[in-house]
């Protein structure tokens, strides 16, 4: 199944996207592909503002009806803003993963160059789909 992968964003292989804003901050969220795999989101644990994070460090948790998943920082930096709307409306990530469903903003001196472009991420997402046999985190469901 194909999902939206905007060409103007950069991606981590752990399914986060990153966008540099005009003010130099980097906005981070999870991809459309990731939200689709997770299913309906019901809870988001946001990082604390001011927290220093390293690349690939888990700093938020998204919980779907199915399972909890870590959201990793795509870059070294400091969390300067979190999307407070997600506390009451975690479904924003399902509905608009690249817009209203953003998760946190980073202040960073790193550039996005080390991250994948849309074409490279598309290959990862497609390989994921091939491997996706639908097995659950907890196979004893029902």
């Amino acid at each position: 199944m194909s999902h939206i992968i905007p060409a103007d964003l950069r991606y981590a292989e752990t399914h986060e996207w990153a966008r540099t804003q005009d003010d130099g901050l980097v906005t981070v969220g999870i991809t459309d592909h990731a939200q689709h795999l997770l299913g309906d989101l019901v809870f988001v644990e946001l990082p604390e503002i001011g927290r220093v994070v390293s690349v690939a460090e888990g700093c938020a948790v998204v919980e779907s009806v199915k399972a909890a998943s870590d959201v990793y920082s795509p870059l070294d930096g400091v969390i300067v803003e979190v999307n407070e709307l997600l506390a009451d409306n975690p479904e924003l990530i399902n509905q608009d993963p690249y817009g209203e469903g953003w998760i946190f903003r980073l202040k960073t001196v790193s550039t996005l160059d080390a991250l994948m472009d849309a074409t490279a991420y598309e290959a990862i997402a497609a390989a994921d789909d091939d491997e996706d046999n639908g097995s659950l985190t907890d196979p004893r469901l029902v």
Partner: protein
Amino acid sequence: MAKHTPLYVRHLALGARLVDFGGWDLPLHYGSQLKEHTQVRTAAGLFDVSHMTIVDFPDPRPARVLLRYLLANDVARLYPDKALYTCLLNETGGIIDDLIVYDRGATGYRLVLNAATRVKDLSWIAPIAERFSTAWNERDDLAMLAVQGPEALTRLAAVLDAGILARVQASQRFHAIEAGNLFIARTGYTGEDGVEIMLPADAAPTLWDQLLAAGVAPCGLGARDTLRLEAGMSLYGSDMDETTTPLVSGLGWTVAWQPPDREFIGRAALERQRAAGIPQIFIGLVLEDRGVLRSHQTVYDGDAAVGLTTSGAFSPTLNRGIALARVAATTGERCRVEVRGKRLAALTVKPPFVSRPR
């Protein structure tokens, strides 16, 4: 090679996300598990539960004697068309499976068991049935559809013959009717009104199509799990298994102690456990903080670890994390559950978490 129900092609056509469950490819959801859950709580949902194991005991007289020995609940409490929920125990009182047994009068008894436990159930039952010279046969020629929700019966009106519908409407909860090739029971796994329909596999796709046309929404195993949990219903393999007895699983009410001279498998072990004092209780937990509960999380009373959650989820109806848990009998009304290293406040409750208006 995963097994497919007679509705597999229907699931594919509806774009279901399929999962392996007990060797079967079954729909997890058809797009949104939350919407399916809400559909069942507010209108009507349709579940393909053809993976369930159906076993018939056609000869009622020897079957009654056998089942009174085999099952912890007592089929002597049944009468024709009545159903009974029970555990199947081993000699140590551990739960091999949970099941529903239907009294079919002169046609004998019907058992509906879990799919994931099929092989061990049948290999447990076979030698005992032989000892009791009681015939039985698995009904893998049947499919099973569940129609659940406050509008289940009104939607069925568009599908069932008027005479059959009237009989279904007149039947009570935990009763069944039989008409032609249809076996229709007022049972389910959602806490809502509704039916479970057993019918020949080749007739199932047509009934499925008719129910969808009548406005019943297809629902997957995901919604089935959150619905049953809200209704406080146990899941085999999570909330109980062969290492736990009904007495520590919130299922003491399913054990028929009377009459005292009825011998059933596991009785002696349960009596010993009861005499020694039951060390644990089975409770519901509602998270007061934001978050989601899952199985195998540690429950704390003060600073003491007192037990584990056995099933957990986010309750779409309550908009809170809920769980079933097995904890020390001394556990107080307020406790905490450890979620990713944090101990979140929870309230202990007696399930169900959600009950339908009566």
